[in-house]
C-alpha cells in the first residue's frame, strides 16, 4: 500500500472528526471568493459612484481574511497533528520512517484543504448572485444582478488558499519529522500536574489591561494612532497573562473554598478546569482576542450604519425641500410632482427667519412642535415638555449634517438681542436644505424678531419611493431659481450612505466568518479535552455518578470554557466601542448591545453543539 492510499484511507475514516473544520473552511472559501469577485464584477464597475468603494472594500476585506485564514489554518492543522500523535507513534513502531509518516499526515491536511477549496468555490459561485444582490440592496443600488463567474476571482482564491495550505503542509511535515518516537507514545499518557501560579503575572495582567483601557479612553494624550497601537499590544499581552495567571489564581481560590467546591458537580468541573488551564490558556486568550475583534468590528460597522442612518433622518427628513413663498413657483413644483409617478405622503410649510450675521435661522415654538409631530420624531413629547415655556430663552437645534456636538456657547445673539440657550438638541427639522443651526423661540418673541429680520417660507414634501428621484430632481432644478435652494433625496444620497451600506454588509459577513472560526477553534480544543476526560468520567460513573450529574458537570466545564473568553472579549469591546462613541460624540449603546446580542446567540449555538458532542464522546464506551 503506498502512502497516498494510506492517506486516503485515513481521510475517509476521519471525515466526521473534520466536519466542523470542513464547514468553516468551505464557508471561508466561498466568502473569500465573493469578496474578490466583487472587484471583477462588470456590473459593479459600471456604476461609477460605487465602483471605487466596492474596489476598496473588496481589497480590505480580502486582506483581513487572508490574515485570519493564516491563523485559522495553521492553528487547526497544528491541532489535528497533535491530536493524532499516538497514531503517528504506532506507524513509527511499525517501522515506517518519519519522512513517510510526515508525508502521510501532512498530506491529509492538504487534501482536506483542497477538498474544502473545491466545494467552497462551487458554493461560492453558486451563491455569488445572492451575495451581490444582498450587497446591492445594502448599498441601495437599484440594479439587476446577473449571474456571473469571475475567472480572475477563482484563480486568485485558488492561489491564495494553495499558498496558505502549502505552508501549513510544510509546517506539519517538518514538525512530524522532528518528533521522537518516545515523545509520541507518551503524549497522551503524560501525567498531568497542577500548574504553578504566578501571582505577580496575574496581578500585572490586571494592571496592563487597566493601562490599556486608560490609554484607549484618553486617546488624545498620545494621539489616536499611537494610542491605538499601544492599546492593541497591551490588551493582547494583558489578556494572555490574565488567562495564564490571574484565572489560575481565581480557580485555585475556588478550589480551596470547600464550601463552594463540595456542592454537587462543582468538584468535578472546577478540578478539571484548574488542571487544564496551563494547556488551555493560550486558546482562551486567542479566543478572547478574536471575540473582541469580532464584536468591535461588527459593533463599529453597525454603529456607523446606525449613526449614518440617524444622521440621514436629520439631514434628509423630506424627499424634496425648497425655499420660496412665491405662489407660482409652489404651484409649478406641485404640478411637476403630480405628473411624476410619486405619491405625496406629507406636505410641510413653515416660516422662518434668516439671520445671516449669526449664521442661524429662527423658528417659532408652535411651528417647531408641528414639524416634530408631522415628522413623527421619536420622544418628541418628552422633548417638548422639557422645553416648557420659552421666554428669554431659546432652544438650539444643531445644524443638519454636523457629526459632533460642538455646542459650547451659553447664549447667542440675534440682531441686537441676546438669548440664553436653554438646551441643544439634534432633531430633524428642515434637513440639509437649510444648512444652518436653528433657534426655537416663543411665538411672541418670534413676532418681535420678524420685524427686524427677513422671513422666508420653507416647503418640504415627502414622497413614496424616495430613492427613485433622479429624474424628478433634474426637472425641478430647471424650474426653480437658484435662491430656492432645491434639496432632494437624490442630491443627499449616493454619498456616505452607500459606502456605509457596503461596509456594513461586508463587515457583517466578516463577522459571520469570524464567529464560525472562533467557534470551531473552541470546538476543536474542547473535543481534544473530551478524549482525555473520558477515563475520568468512566471512573466517576463507576463510583456512582448519575448520567444527569455527568451532563451537569460537562455543561459547567464546557460552559466555563465558552464563558470566560466571552466575558473578557465583551468587556474589551465595550471599552473599544465606547471610545468610538466618544469620537463620534454619539451614544452607540443600541448598536453595541445589538452586536453583542447577535454574537451571543450564534456563540450560544456553538456551545450547545459542542456540549452535546462532548457528552456523546464521554458516554460512548470506547
Amino acid at each position, binding site marked *: 500500500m503506498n502512502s497516498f492510499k494510506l492517506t486516503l484511507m485515513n481521510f475517509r475514516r476521519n471525515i466526521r472528526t473534520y466536519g466542523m473544520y470542513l464547514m468553516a473552511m468551505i464557508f471561508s472559501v466561498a466568502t473569500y471568493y465573493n469578496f474578490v469577485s466583487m472587484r471583477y464584477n462588470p456590473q459593479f464597475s459600471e456604476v461609477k459612484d460605487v465602483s471605487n468603494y466596492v474596489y476598496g472594500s473588496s481589497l480590505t476585506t480580502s486582506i483581513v481574511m487572508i490574515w485570519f485564514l493564516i491563523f485559522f489554518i495553521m492553528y487547526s492543522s497544528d491541532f489535528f497533528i497533535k491530536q493524532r500523535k499516538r497514531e503517528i507513534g504506532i506507524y513509527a513502531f511499525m517501522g515506517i520512517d518519519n519522512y513517510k509518516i510526515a508525508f502521510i499526515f501532512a498530506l491529509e491536511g492538504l487534501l482536506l484543504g483542497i477538498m474544502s477549496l473545491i466545494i467552497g468555490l462551487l458554493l461560492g459561485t453558486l451563491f455569488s448572485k445572492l451575495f451581490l444582490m444582498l450587497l446591492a440592496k445594502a448599498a441601495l443600488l437599484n440594479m439587476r444582478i446577473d449571474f456571473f463567474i469571475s475567472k480572475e476571482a477563482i484563480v486568485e482564491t485558488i492561489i491564495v488558499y494553495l499558498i496558505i495550505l502549502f505552508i501549513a503542509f510544510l509546517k506539519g511535515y517538518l514538525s512530524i519529522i522532528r518528533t521522537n518516537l518516545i515523545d509520541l507514545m507518551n503524549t497522551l499518557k503524560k501525567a498531568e500536574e497542577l500548574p504553578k501560579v504566578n501571582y505577580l503575572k496575574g496581578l500585572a495582567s490586571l494592571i496592563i489591561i487597566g493601562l490599556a483601557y486608560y490609554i484607549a479612553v484618553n486617546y488624545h494624550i498620545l494621539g489616536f494612532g499611537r494610542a491605538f497601537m499601544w492599546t492593541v499590544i497591551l490588551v493582547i499581552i494583558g489578556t494572555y497573562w490574565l488567562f495564564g495567571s490571574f484565572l489560575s489564581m481565581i480557580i485555585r481560590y475556588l478550589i480551596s473554598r470547600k464550601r463552594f467546591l463540595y456542592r454537587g458537580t462543582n468538584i*468535578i468541573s472546577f478540578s478539571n478546569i484548574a488542571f487544564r488551564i496551563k494547556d488551555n490558556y493560550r486558546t482562551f486568550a486567542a479566543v478572547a482576542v478574536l471575540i473582541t475583534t469580532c464584536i468591535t468590528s461588527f459593533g463599529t460597522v453597525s454603529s456607523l450604519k446606525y449613526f449614518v442612518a440617524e444622521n440621514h433622518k436629520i439631514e434628509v427628513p423630506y424627499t424634496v425641500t425648497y425655499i420660496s413663498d412665491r405662489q407660482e413657483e409652489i404651484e409649478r413644483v406641485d404640478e411637476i410632482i403630480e405628473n411624476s409617478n410619486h405619491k405625496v405622503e406629507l406636505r410641510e410649510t413653515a416660516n422662518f427667519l434668516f439671520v445671516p450675521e449669526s449664521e442661524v435661522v429662527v423658528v417659532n415654538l408652535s411651528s417647531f412642535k408641528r414639524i416634530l409631530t408631522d415628522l413623527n420624531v421619536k420622544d418628541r413629547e418628552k422633548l417638548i415638555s422639557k422645553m416648557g415655556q420659552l421666554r428669554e430663552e431659546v432652544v438650539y437645534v444643531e445644524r443638519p449634517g454636523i457629526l459632533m456636538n460642538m455646542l459650547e456657547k451659553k447664549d447667542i445673539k440675534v440682531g441686537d438681542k441676546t438669548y440664553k440657550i436653554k438646551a441643544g438638541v439634534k432633531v430633524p427639522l428642515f434637513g440639509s436644505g437649510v444648512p444652518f443651526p436653528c433657534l426655537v423661540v416663543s411665538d411672541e418673541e418670534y413676532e418681535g424678531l420678524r420685524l427686524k429680520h427677513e422671513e422666508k417660507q420653507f416647503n418640504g414634501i415627502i414622497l413614496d419611493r424616495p430613492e427613485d428621484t433622479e429624474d424628478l430632481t433634474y426637472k425641478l432644478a430647471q424650474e426653480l431659481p437658484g435662491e430656492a435652494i432645491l434639496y432632494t433625496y437624490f442630491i443627499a444620497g449616493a454619498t456616505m450612505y452607500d459606502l456605509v451600506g457596503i461596509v456594513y454588509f461586508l463587515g457583517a459577513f466578516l463577522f459571520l466568518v469570524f464567529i464560525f472560526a472562533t467557534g470551531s477553534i473552541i470546538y476543536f480544543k474542547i473535543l481534544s479535552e473530551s478524549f482525555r476526560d473520558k477515563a475520568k468520567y468512566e*471512573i466517576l460513573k463507576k463510583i456512582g455518578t448519575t448520567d444527569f450529574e455527568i451532563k451537569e458537570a460537562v455543561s459547567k466545564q464546557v460552559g466555563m470554557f465558552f464563558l470566560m473568553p466571552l466575558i473578557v472579549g465583551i468587556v474589551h469591546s465595550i471599552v473599544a466601542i465606547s471610545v468610538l462613541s466618544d469620537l463620534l460624540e454619539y451614544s452607540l449603546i443600541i448598536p453595541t448591545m445589538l452586536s453583542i446580542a447577535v454574537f451571543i446567540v450564534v456563540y450560544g449555538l456553538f456551545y450547545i453543539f459542542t456540549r452535546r458532542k462532548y457528552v456523546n464522546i464521554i458516554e460512548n464506551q470506547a
Partner: protein
Amino acid sequence: MEIVLETRNLRKEYGTRGMVFAAIDGVDVKVYKGEFLGIMGPSGAGKTTLLNILSTIDRPTSGKVYYGDKDISTMKNRELSIFRRNNIGFLFQDFNLLDNMSVEDNIALPLALSNVNIKEIKERVERLSSFFGLKDQLKKYPYQLSGGQKQRVAAARAIITSPTIVFADEPTGALDSKSSQELLQCLVKMNEELNTTIIMVTHDAFAASYCKRILYLKDGRIHARLDKDSTRKEFFKRIIDFVGSMGGGVSELL
C-alpha cells in the same frame, strides 16, 4: 447473622444466539454483615464479571441480586447510580483516583456529589485520613503519592459514605509486596474496627489469606468454599495447597 447481599441463580451470558458463552453460570452467594469474603479463581473464571454484577456496574442476564430485601435488577439507571454511591464502595487495581483532585477532594467526592453538609464532609475526611494514615497527604495530588498511598486514598473514598459493602478488585495487583501487606492490613482493620463488609477478588493466595472466607470460582460456577478457622499463615498454606491441587487437575476430589 444479617444477610446484606444475596444472589439467586445468577447467570451472565455473552455472545449472540448460537455462540453463547456463560461467564457466570448459576451462582448463589450469601454475604453476611461484617464479612471479609475473597473470590478466587483462574483467569477467565468470571471473577470480575461476578464482582461487576454484585456491585451493580453490570446487569445479569438472568437471576436476582438482593441487597437486604431490595431487588436491584428492577432499579432504573439513575436510581442505581445513586444506590451505588450511597451503598457501595470500590477499590480497583489501578486505583481509579481522579488525577486532577487533591487527596482531600478525592476522598470527599462521593459526599460532595450528594450535597452533604460541608461540616460533616470535613469531619469524615478528617477521621478517615487519620484512620488510613493519610493526614500529611491531604493537600497532595495523586501524582505525588506512592502506589500504596494511592490505594489507601481509594479505600478512604470507598468507605466515606459508610457503604453496606466494599468491593475490591485485585486491590494489590499494582502494589509491591510491602505496600500490599500494608493495604491488606488496612482492609482487615476496616473490617474489624469499622465492621465494614468487604468482598475482594484476587488471584493472589497471599492476599486471599487475609479473608475470612473464600469462594473459588471456575468456569462461571462456585467450585469450592474455604473458611478460615485458624491463623492466617495456616490459611495461606491451605489456599496454596488448594490452588495447587486445582492446577493439578484433581479438583473433583476435593
